[in-house]
């Protein structure tokens, strides 16, 4: 239990360091004098001069040695000070607090959509391996897997919003707006996870322990409830963990496609407009979100699989 938290905690620190160092390099790699540019960002090109640039330079410590600046940069992050947006002038934290909610809503919608698709299809295919549903879902999965998230988003926009005129295309005003982006992400995730469900179900149904449970006298229903479900759930939940990387990547891309007001969209926008505190803040939030979701999956796997719990207990005993 503690080891799981420790490992993910270490990952979180690593994420913070990587993001922070990258943003620092990004800052340094900007063409021209950073102080001038920041001053221009603050006061506008007309209002700024060498003196205001000098003020900025002093304020941000841009005249110090490079390593010292990096240390300052990281220690600011360690104090949870993400700075102000160069574009909006508002604290990055405030921006992220608003955007995070939208991104979580989209991620939840996507996971829900992928489960709603993958579970029924995968179970139906796994119960009759080699049957019609199995073959059809396999072919469809191969085709859909080859369409990247943003291309899938474009196709769905073309079909649903334009040709059929059913659903709103972009932005977020009502829950209806959630349908297309979550469907895009969910469909993308389900292309592989439905096969994982199928394999898990097919394996569980042909396992020797299932047949033994039946021949010792348990009914098909009891066998399903007491043995098959838990055993089949384990690889599926573990695979959701693998998919988290795709989910985070997908959130970034799909938000951009649908102009969804979340963190991914903000990150892309910040990179485009060279708003480095925002880049750092959003990338960090997405990275930490990835770590937290991974931790949840770790804990879920431990909840399902008593083997990990027992072996941990034995280790503590010796």
């Amino acid at each position, binding site marked *: 239990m503690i080891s799981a938290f420790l490992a993910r905690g270490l990952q979180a620190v690593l994420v913070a360091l990587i993001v922070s160092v990258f943003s620092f390099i990004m800052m340094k790699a900007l063409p021209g004098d950073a102080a001038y540019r920041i001053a221009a960002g603050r006061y506008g090109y007309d209002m700024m001069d060498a003196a205001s640039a000098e003020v900025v330079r002093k304020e941000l410590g841009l005249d110090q040695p490079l390593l010292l600046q990096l240390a300052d940069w990281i220690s600011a992050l360690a104090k949870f000070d993400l700075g102000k947006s160069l574009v909006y002038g508002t604290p990055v934290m405030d921006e992220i607090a608003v955007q995070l909610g939208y991104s979580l809503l989209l991620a939840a919608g996507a996971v829900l959509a992928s489960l709603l698709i993958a579970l029924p299809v995968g179970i139906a295919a796994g119960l009759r391996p080699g049957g019609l549903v199995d073959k059809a879902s396999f072919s469809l999965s191969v085709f859909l897997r080859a369409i990247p998230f943003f291309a899938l988003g474009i196709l769905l926009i073309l079909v649903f919003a334009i040709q059929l005129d059913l659903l709103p295309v972009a932005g977020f005003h009502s829950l209806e707006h959630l349908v297309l982006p979550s469907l895009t992400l969910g469909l993308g995730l389900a292309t592989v996870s439905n096969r994982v469900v199928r394999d898990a179900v097919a394996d569980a149904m042909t396992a020797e*322990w299932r047949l*033994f449970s039946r021949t*010792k006298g348990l009914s*098909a229903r009891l066998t399903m409830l007491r*043995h098959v479900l838990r055993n089949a759930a384990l690889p599926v939940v573990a695979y959701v963990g693998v998919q988290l990387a795709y989910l985070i990547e997908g959130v970034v891309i799909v938000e951009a496609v649908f102009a969804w007001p979340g963190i991914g969209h903000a990150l892309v926008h910040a990179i485009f407009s060279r708003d480095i505190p925002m880049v750092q803040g959003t990338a960090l939030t997405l990275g930490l979100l990835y770590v937290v979701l991974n931790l949840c999956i770790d804990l879920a796997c431990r909840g399902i699989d*008593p083997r990990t719990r027992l072996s941990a207990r034995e280790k503590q005993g010796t």
Partner: protein
Amino acid sequence: MKAPGRVVISVQALCIHAGKDILLGPIEFHVREGGTLVIIGETGAGKSLAVQAILGTLHGSLLAEGQITVNGQRHDLLAPSTRANFWGKELATLPQEPWRALDPLMQSHRQVCETHRFVSCHSQHAAVVATNNAFGSLGLNGAEQHLPGTLSGGMAQRVAFAAATAGGAPILLADEPTKGLDTKRHATVVSLLSQVPDSGGALVVITHDISVARSLGGDVLILKDGCMIEQGPTHAVLDYPKTTYTKDLANAQPACWKPAKPCQSGDWVLKADSIRIKRGGRVLVDNFSLRLHAGERIAISGPSGGGKTTLLDTLAGLLRPANGEIQRAEHLSSTDIQKLYQDPPAAFPARVNLSCSLRDVARIHGVDSAQVACLLSRLGINSALLDRRPDEVSGGELQRISIARALTVRPRILLADEPTSRLDPITQRDTMKLLADIASDENIAILLVTHDIAMAKAWANRCIALSSPEEPLPPGGWGNRLDKAY
């Protein structure tokens, strides 16, 4: 002798087809209350299909014909879902390798308890009490909360037995109950199974092991290539076999082999002086000494997990002993010690043709292909087999090919690690005889490691017994193993 009870299970003219091929049958047998039937046959003889046909769990592509009557009711005429209703209540099964038949994610106590609860329809409390009693009487105390993955093979067997019989079925079908267990555990399994006829039930056991059949008694049915060739009381059939096959089978038991004479010792080729072997902080072998002479056959026997394989690897120079010294005779080169493996397919590169593997070895040692071909024909291997991959030939053939491969480098010492434990009795006898002949013809020393004490005694010039790891831990580690000659 008790009065014969009524017939509880009867099979008549049972045939199993796969398309046009007949895989099994026709077979016929009856088992009475308190009776035992042992079905003996080699791997691939279709033995397991008989159990599946009686249960009604045959694969959909197979077709069963004939009459199966359980407790006076024709089961073969019933719908599959109706037949499932008899499972646990009238028919119980002990599957092959029970540790794979237990749910890996559920504690053993719950897996037994659920049968009491839902099949015998006890209350939760009564089910727990019944399970506790079963665990107590089977010597499973302390294993209640264990998951199947942490149980030993013998314990998993007993848990599966408790779970299978908890529904109160009077008939038990056991498929290869000793597969994967040490010979030492066989007696435990036999006494476990004997509880069924002793308490008035009927027992049907499928096995390839004649000694298990002898200890179970009752009746025996002998299968060859899916055909029933002999049937009758076990001791009568095995002691006075009518067919050559049964005769062969009975004589293939190590106990019937011609015992080996002590070897006229030549020069020693390998010497170990009071070595100690540790693995993972545990002392596996201590104070072990050995002198292996040219052309000598030595067997080291002991239960699994006792460090036999580690000892062999140490003698082969693959591992270093923690203490003591191992010496090879001075004229031995690095390839003069060769190993034979327990699982022949694992000893060959899996994705390469056998001929290619043999050619590689021959080329390095400058042996021409005619010599290799000569060796192969002497070992009775059809050269057409060499175009296949290791997993496409039978275990017996592959073990002979691996012997041929080892002989290609003209070794002075062969270390054989359970080389026949996955082979049928007749194949085992032939392979071991081949090894013995090679030892004397080529003057090669062979060190055999086996869990089968009977085979060790029958085959070797000298035996060394390693003590069991289940014995109480003496000071200084697992046992004091001496070079002890019988």
